[in-house]
């Protein structure tokens, strides 16, 4: 059976992607999450209520041993399974001025967004290569493309992920594996809940924050067979705030 794995899939954009891919592409979903059991189970319920299938995999993508152990256990229990779609969505923010930034705020953000991509994707890509088909979608951010003041750590992590996306895409395209990045701007999630939408939307040409489901629509397309000729791209979804 062929599966889609969404890291950081218990809430926000990750949840919307998990639900959308289950519904539109009919993949059984593997939802990775780090700690929020309640939110993860809600995601599972939403998918199952809509007729899909969802397995929760609890691990910290920043921890390579934890990541490998959970994925290996699942693969041993499901020897015929193939993870055909990987959505690297897990990420955190630790905003603040760079001059005051603590080492842990720098490293935590890079460990989850950037090393998490390595820990998960590197472990699964060999099997994807032998299967000669796959979709890898990395959730980056407008911050990783243009840079955002107060988010030097997050911008660095996402910017590095943009470069990794382009490089890996060239490396494995021959095996019908595409690698793309999706760069959302202001999207209504927990991550942006404390932002002043009224104030900020003035600088967004579309004049509103985006919905997680809109990002999920784009990711679902990239995860589908319809996107076969798109690889190494960074697709902005930001209401026109940056292009």
């Amino acid at each position, binding site marked *: 059976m062929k599966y889609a794995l969404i890291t950081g899939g218990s809430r926000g954009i990750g949840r919307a992607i998990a639900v959308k891919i289950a519904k539109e592409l009919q993949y059984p979903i593997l939802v990775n999450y780090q700690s929020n059991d309640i939110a993860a189970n809600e995601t599972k319920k939403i998918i199952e209520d809509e007729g899909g299938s969802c397995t929760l995999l609890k691990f910290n993508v920043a921890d390579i041993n934890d990541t490998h152990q959970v994925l290996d256990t699942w693969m041993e229990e499901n020897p015929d399974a193939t993870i055909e779609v990987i959505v690297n969505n897990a990420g955190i923010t630790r905003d603040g001025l760079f001059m005051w930034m603590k080492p842990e705020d720098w490293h935590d953000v890079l460990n989850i967004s950037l090393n998490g991509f390595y820990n998960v994707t590197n472990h699964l890509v*060999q099997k994807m*290569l*032998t299967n000669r088909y796959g979709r890898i979608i990395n959730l980056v951010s407008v911050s990783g493309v243009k840079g955002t003041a107060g988010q030097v750590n997050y911008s660095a992590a996402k910017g590095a992920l943009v470069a990794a996306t382009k490089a890996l895409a060239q*490396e*494995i395209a*021959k*095996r019908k594996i595409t690698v793309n990045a999706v760069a959302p701007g202001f999207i209504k999630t927990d991550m942006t809940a404390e932002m002043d939408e009224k104030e900020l939307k003035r600088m967004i040409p579309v004049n509103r924050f985006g919905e997680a489901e809109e990002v999920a629509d784009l990711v679902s397309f990239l995860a589908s067979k319809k996107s076969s000729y798109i690889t190494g791209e960074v697709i902005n979804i930001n209401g026109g705030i940056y292009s």
Partner: protein
Amino acid sequence: MDTNLIVEKVNEFLIEEFEVDGEDISPEADLKETLDLDSLDYVDLVVAIEATFGVKLVGEDFVGVDNFQKFYDLIEKKVNS
């Protein structure tokens, strides 16, 4: 495992999975050229070796392995270690 058995098993999966003509395989023949390998194809070799012999090779194991004899030697060393 006996050297001859290793050679036999290796040639068997190469002929089957890499669609190479058995007559083109000789100890001194160029591995990459004969099998028409690009860098990504090594992943298929690794998988075939693991399935056949139960040993896992990594990319750096192939450094300097440019002909079939060196390839047999590499597998023999791994299998018997």
